[in-house]
């Protein structure tokens, strides 16, 4: 039985990793070798594709822009979502269920629906082509998701802890920062992971709301593709570099994620 499980899992993992391996391997090949034929390993190992990206400002600023607005988005989202999730997990208030549902619908509605007015709205308030603008736009789907996940974790913390703290003379902000947040550390880790993921992978809004100054790497990639044929090597290298930040993030939160998943709450 256990052997069968391991086998099945291995097959699935190979299925997951093979396309990524292919991309990685291609990023070390020159274009002529890529188009020359199929091989599992580069004949001549070259870093030219990566050099192109690191020396050309349109490429590397794309990365900096993406990282910058994703970080902003994480900060904003966590700041507003933590108290809100606490309110949802601890209190009944007027319209709470409807408010919660309304928040969720924003996670569910396609960005394409709001594309044109988004452009108009953000231009009219001067947020077009700024990092903070993209970060705010991504809050539309990340804040509801963060509230949803955090609410699940917070409901798992017994109420007695709150009550004891208040009896001991803690004020709400002090209790929240000193006692409550450390208790749900794993939950915050998992939430941060999901916020990062959805903001990092999103393209449609980020591309529409930027032109030059805050252009994300994903948009740089699509435009380069359409410009002058396809430079497969550089494209593959750029792809590999967009996966790296995700790997770094997941490495940092790995224990929280494992524990958060193990707690049975997502």
């Amino acid at each position, binding site marked *: 039985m256990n052997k069968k499980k391991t086998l099945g899992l291995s097959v699935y993992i190979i299925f997951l990793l093979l396309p990524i391996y292919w991309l990685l391997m291609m990023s070390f090949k020159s274009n002529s070798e890529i188009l020359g034929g199929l091989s599992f390993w580069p004949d001549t190992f070259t870093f030219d594709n990566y050099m192109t990206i690191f020396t050309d400002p349109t490429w590397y600023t794309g990365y900096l822009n993406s990282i910058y607005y994703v970080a902003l988005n994480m900060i904003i989202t966590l700041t507003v979502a933590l108290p809100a999730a606490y309110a949802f997990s601890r209190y009944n208030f*007027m*319209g709470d*269920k*409807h408010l919660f549902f309304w928040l969720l619908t924003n996670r569910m509605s396609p960005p394409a629906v709001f594309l044109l*007015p988004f452009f*108009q*709205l953000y231009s*009219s308030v001067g947020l077009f082509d700024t990092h903070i603008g993209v970060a705010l736009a991504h809050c539309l789907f990340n804040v509801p998701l963060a509230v949803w996940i955090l609410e699940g974790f917070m409901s798992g913390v017994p109420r007695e802890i709150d009550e004891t703290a208040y009896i001991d003379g803690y004020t709400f902000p002090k209790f929240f920062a000193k006692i409550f947040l450390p208790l749900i550390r794993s939950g915050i880790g998992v939430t941060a992971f999901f916020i990062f993921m959805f903001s990092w992978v999103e393209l449609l809004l980020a591309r529409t709301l930027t032109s030059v100054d805050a252009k994300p790497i994903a948009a740089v990639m699509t435009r380069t593709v359409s410009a002058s044929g396809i430079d497969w090597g550089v494209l593959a290298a750029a792809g590999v570099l967009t996966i790296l930040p995700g790997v770094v993030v997941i490495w940092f939160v790995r224990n929280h994620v494992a524990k958060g998943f193990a707690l049975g709450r997502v």
Partner: protein
Amino acid sequence: MEWMAWTTPSALFFVGIGCIILTMVCWEIVSPTVASKGFLPIITTRGDRIFISLLSAAFIHLGFIGLTMLPLSVPLTIAIIWLFIVMKWG
């Protein structure tokens, strides 16, 4: 506000929605809702019922617009009657 391209009918529509929400809030303050089971398959509060009726009103309108050439007053009347039925017996 020019880019929002307001028209009188759409402005009236949103004022109407706003009024409905406001009325619901006031009603809630005066007499808090009690969740109850009516002909709908789930237990609903007053807020749920108004949402259900508004959403179905939207689909009633879409159905009439898509399938028939009848004037809008027909689906509007049906939607309003439906709203009262759901609010009363939902």
